[in-house]
């Protein structure tokens, strides 16, 4: 049974592009339970929605990533030859500033396998990273060169999966002490 459905425009409903300014990331090694796509999805929503909740190992949490509005996106595309296809999930994230935390992220990102959660403007959470493939993070930093240049770090995230970055409705466990969002 396939889960194809009509794909129509819903009149009177906003189609707001972009991501919210706060995203999240965690090391896969610090995740005890990873939500997964259902084995036998019965609806289009189940096809692309993770089942379960992220449960972390003791005293580990998702960390926040701030991005300037309009400088982050999640996208994806199928890859590979016919009958050998997978899906390439990608995320682009620009953080304003080159403080120690941001530079340390650039240094460490290539050394760890991470999972990211980005929040769409309409509240849908998209997860980039899974248990089957490693997540590749390419980081870059720039001080900018002119008075109007962008100074900050850029993160390019890529991973392979079976479909677009899935939706996630579960909880995102955070550090017990609130951290200010603004860099």
């Amino acid at each position: 049974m396939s889960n194809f459905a009509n794909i129509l425009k819903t009149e009177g409903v906003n189609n707001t592009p972009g991501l919210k300014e706060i995203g999240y990331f965690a090391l896969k090694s610090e995740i005890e339970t990873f939500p997964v796509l259902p084995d036998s999805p019965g609806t289009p929503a189940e096809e692309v929605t993770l089942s379960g909740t992220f449960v972390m190992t003791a005293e580990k949490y998702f960390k926040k990533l701030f991005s300037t509005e309009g400088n982050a996106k999640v996208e994806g595309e199928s890859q590979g030859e016919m009958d050998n296809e997978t899906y390439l999930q990608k995320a682009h994230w620009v953080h304003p500033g080159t403080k120690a935390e941001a530079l340390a992220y650039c240094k460490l990102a290539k050394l760890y396998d991470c999972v990211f959660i980005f929040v769409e403007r309409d509240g849908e959470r998209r997860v980039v990273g899974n248990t089957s493939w490693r997540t590749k993070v390419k980081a870059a930093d720039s001080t900018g060169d002119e008075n109007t240049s962008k100074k900050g770090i850029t993160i390019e995230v890529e991973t392979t999966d079976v479909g677009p970055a899935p939706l996630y409705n579960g909880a995102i466990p955070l550090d017990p002490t609130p951290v200010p969002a603004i860099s």
Partner: protein
Amino acid sequence: MKLFRLKGIQSPGRVDLKGHGEIALETISDKLAEKLWKEGIPYLELTDKGRKKFYPEQKPIKVNKIDKSEKKKK
């Protein structure tokens, strides 16, 4: 929150939840906790009071005392 307590997350149980934003689970109402618990959030478990409310038919298991004289014989 009297019917639930935190499980597997450090106090105050700070999480980001779709539709609620960033909240501390320890400070939410029993009504919201019940909704989240029914949705399967793994960070909440029933207190004794909560167990009595949701599983009123459950009774504590009776444990018979070990007969000390029997134990000595062995």
